[in-house]
């Protein structure tokens, strides 16, 4: 019976004969030559068989020599693991959980196999082996399905357990092709559609795609990407070759040395982080906006100046500018200054009212207006010039008093 459970025709490509045995009549008696797989032996017989196999191997000195180097880690692993294995299986057997026992054994066997194959000396077991004489430079084992899957993960931007493999861009395509081939061989029942993305992408990728650039962009921050977009081709290439830490340091350094602008809304703009021309445009727009808002704000203060501070000296616009500045001051200071200005305005008010003379329409007139009126009336009544009329009015008592007030 075949261990793989299949019945399709197969042909041996290699055989290794360990021993020749005398045997009793086989089940397929009558066949001149019939290959059969041995039936499940009785426990003792099977045990004897295994012992015999081990004895045979130990008699072969070449085997001893070829395995000596790997004995030490294997023995360490066995001694370290056996107690834990027995404990686990004892518990599982108490529970009557045969499946758990099997699973423990499988995992233990796999750990031995993994350890035994931990470091193949054949560079073909690796997808990347630039120098056949230097195993330390070999990367991405592809000798087992588990290693192939790990290699595919390492080729993805996320990496294997967070660690993407570092392969020179020039070699990457060939490396991925080797992993692809190994994957397809390891999983003959699966199609390319089932392949990990890291292996698919290269297959669909145009010839001129810069994989190194794509990988670098995949891990760049937005600020780094914005900075990258402003660089020349040569500078881009240098930026891509930097490590992640170097890119971060570069962009941070630029932030401290380059032109920045904070908008009226408090948004900080970094010139190098924006496409060309955008920084200037945003800055200009914000400045125009600020100016417009300032003008609108000033108009409000002009109205306040005209209404509340009309007796203070200066134009309404000048007083509005002062009021705007006062409004920006600390609240306590602003309130004190405002109170002072209002007090000053109130103090000035009587000075204007003191010289006012109620007119015919009931409105008060100033001394100047009254004096001028007297001059005009005199000039008209006596048909003289305004100068002679002024002299004449000043000669009168009333005119003299008004003139003193001017």
């Amino acid at each position, binding site marked *: *019976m*075949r261990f793989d459970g299949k019945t399709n025709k197969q042909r041996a490509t290699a*055989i290794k004969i*360990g021993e020749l045995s*005398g*045997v009793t009549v086989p089940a397929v008696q009558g066949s001149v*030559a019939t*290959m059969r797989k041995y039936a499940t032996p009785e426990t003792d017989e099977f045990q004897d068989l295994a012992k015999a196999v081990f004895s045979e191997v130990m008699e072969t000195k070449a085997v001893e020599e070829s*395995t000596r180097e790997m004995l030490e880690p294997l*023995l360490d692993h066995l001694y370290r693991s056996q107690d834990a294995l027995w404990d686990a299986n004892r518990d599982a057997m108490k529970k009557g959980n045969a499946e758990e026992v099997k699973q423990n054994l499988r995992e233990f066997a796999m750990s031995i196999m993994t350890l035994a194959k931990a470091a193949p000396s054949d560079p073909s077991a690796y997808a990347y082996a630039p120098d056949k004489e230097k195993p330390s430079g070999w990367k991405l084992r592809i000798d087992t399905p588990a290693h192939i899957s790990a290699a595919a993960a390492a080729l993805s931007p996320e990496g294997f357990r967070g660690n993407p493999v570092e392969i020179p861009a020039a070699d990457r395509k060939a490396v991925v092709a080797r992993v692809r081939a190994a994957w397809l061989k390891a999983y003959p029942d699966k199609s390319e559609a089932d392949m990990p993305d890291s292996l698919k992408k290269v297959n669909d990728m145009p010839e001129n795609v810069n994989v190194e650039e794509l990988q670098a962009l995949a891990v760049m921050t937005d600020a780094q990407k914005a900075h990258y977009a402003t660089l020349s081709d040569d500078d881009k290439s240098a930026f891509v070759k930097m490590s992640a830490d170097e890119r971060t340091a570069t962009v941070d350094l630029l932030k401290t040395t380059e032109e920045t602008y904070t908008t009226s809304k408090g948004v900080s703009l970094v010139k190098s982080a924006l496409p060309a021309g955008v920084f200037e445009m945003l800055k200009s727009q914000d400045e125009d906006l600020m100016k417009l808002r300032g003008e609108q704000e000033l108009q409000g203060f002009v109205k306040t100046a005209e209404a509340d501070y009309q007796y203070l000296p200066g134009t309404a616009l000048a007083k509005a500018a002062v009021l705007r500045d006062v409004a920006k001051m600390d609240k306590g200071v602003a309130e004190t200054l405002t109170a002072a200005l209002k007090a000053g305005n109130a103090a000035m008010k009587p000075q204007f009212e003191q010289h006012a003379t109620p007119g015919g329409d009931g409105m008060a007139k100033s001394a100047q207006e009254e004096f001028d009126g007297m001059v005009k009336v005199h000039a008209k009544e006596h048909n003289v010039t305004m100068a002679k009329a002024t002299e004449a009015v000043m000669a009168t008592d009333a005119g003299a008093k008004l003139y003193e007030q001017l």
Partner: protein
Amino acid sequence: MPDTVRTETIILFFITYFLSVAHTTAAVAYYAHELVSSNTMTQYNELYVPVAKVDTDRRLVFGWGQVVTKNGEELFDSDNQSIPKSVALDGWLEFAKGTRMLKQMHAGEPRGMVPFIFPMFDEVLKSLGIEPIGQEGIAVGAYVEDDETLAKFDSGDFTGFSIGGGAAWEDVE
């Protein structure tokens, strides 16, 4: 017994043996060697062919160690598997250069060795002036050192030879 169960039984046995029965160094040496040196040769196969002659005086047993063709056609076994002549020749060459070990029922201590090994291929026979016999394979002559084993061959209890080892297989189109 299902194959999966058998495989698990084998694993269980090997681990049991590793940890409790055998000297650990020996077990690991074998296991490690098998894992590293023969990735695809993990199946343990046997080939049964009948004994042709027993010479108890010289403690020799002659027979076919393996048959690869019958009436000019490649021989597939009941599992639909075959071993081509060239593959068989390479395998037997290595065996001849090595231990040439003889056992009984693929178990226990060595019971002798195989001093005579010859490829009974048509082209070889013709080169020696011998007419092909309608069957090709490997002829062997085993020297049985162990009395019990020799007695079993002599009595007819053991009626054939069977090779134990491993093979790598490829699907036939």
